[in-house]
């Protein structure tokens, strides 16, 4: 995994902004924020309501902010 992901995992997510997520840079972060997913815990919530279905979650990420396959997998 990337250093960004290791940094993220090193402490509780608390109120971290969505751009702290590995794979989510400024461009994707802005799109997610515009749709209400401004914090990492909201994105976690979406993963949970999708019943932790990784494929469905990646598809959602592609739809909601145009993440490519690598970004979604990260």
């Amino acid at each position: 995994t990337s250093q960004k992901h290791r940094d993220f995992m090193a402490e509780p997510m608390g109120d971290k902004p969505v751009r702290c997520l590995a794979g989510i840079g400024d461009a994707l972060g802005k799109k997610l924020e515009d749709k209400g997913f401004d914090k990492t815990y909201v994105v976690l919530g979406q993963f949970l309501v999708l019943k932790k279905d990784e494929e469905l979650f990646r598809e959602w990420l592609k739809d909601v902010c145009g993440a490519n396959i690598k970004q979604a997998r990260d």
Partner: protein
Amino acid sequence: MEKYKGMTDEELITSLKKFNIPHGPILKTTRKLYEKKMYEFES
């Protein structure tokens, strides 16, 4: 796809159940994915 867009949340969840498609709740942030899943499944 239009067919699923017009469905109520209950109708959509009933269709998913009917075809044993694993699913979570139909929410504003999940509905589109399940409409697509139903469409892909039936086509």
